[in-house]
């Protein structure tokens, strides 16, 4: 499996665990529930790419141990 596909699957799996009533708001882009975000991630829209970017940055932080400093 290609790395990019693995990452997209990982991001979607993370989004799946959100509560149904949670909505992400980006100042400038609007609000999105998890179903909408999953669609954005699958389609590779600007919003979807932003969510992937945030997840990758988070994973890098975990690797650096920042959250346990």
């Amino acid at each position: 499996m290609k790395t990019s596909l693995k990452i997209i699957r990982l991001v979607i799996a993370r989004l799946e665990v959100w509560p149904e009533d949670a909505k992400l708001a980006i100042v400038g882009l609007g609000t999105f529930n998890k179903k909408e975000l999953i669609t954005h991630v699958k389609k590779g829209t600007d919003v979807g790419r932003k969510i992937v970017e945030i997840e990758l940055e988070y994973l890098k932080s975990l690797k650096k141990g920042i959250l346990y400093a």
Partner: protein
Amino acid sequence: MPKVVFTRPDYEIVTHYLFVWSQKLVSEAKKNKWTVTDLRKSQATIAKFTAAVGKTSPALILLHGHGNYSSISGHNGKVIIQAGQNENILKNAVTYAFSCQTAKELGTAAVEAGAKSYIGYNEDFIFFQTEGMEKSPASDKRAAKFMEPALEVSTSLLAKKPPKEAFRKSQKAFRKNIDSLISSNSKEVYLVRYLLWDKNHQVCLIKNSKTAAIDT
């Protein structure tokens, strides 16, 4: 009395959250003996902002609204400050832009043009809301996790703390919320990555000095 100018547009759900959450800052400013110009809702326009700054020469400017790398907007998404055009309006003032991305180009340009400091975000500011809470954003505990640390900058500046201290206090408040979620069994732990994102992309710009996110 020192003077502060607010821009607080309120024309869709995201700006409505910023508008409601920033309401207490206006009271805080008055309590701390600031002379307040509150450009709320449809008053948040380039004409009114330019006039207010020209008339009052504020020590502090608190901006709320949509932004991109080079500009920040007011009512209905219309630009109020654009890098390369009118960033010098922030000259001699301390500014906090509670907005996406503006620290990257607009903030840098403003500091180069003589702004005392510019605190903002060099990427998108992200927060969460709870469906059904749109009519009472101040009671939305999920949103509070993001709003409270972000507004710590404003609260500290209104308490006359220096910009670097306001920035540090906000960073600590983000960290506190992150740690609180990590150390609990909360189902809200998925919020951590977004709080960390906001914390890491908050910057404090001062001429010849940039204070980036800190590991508090």
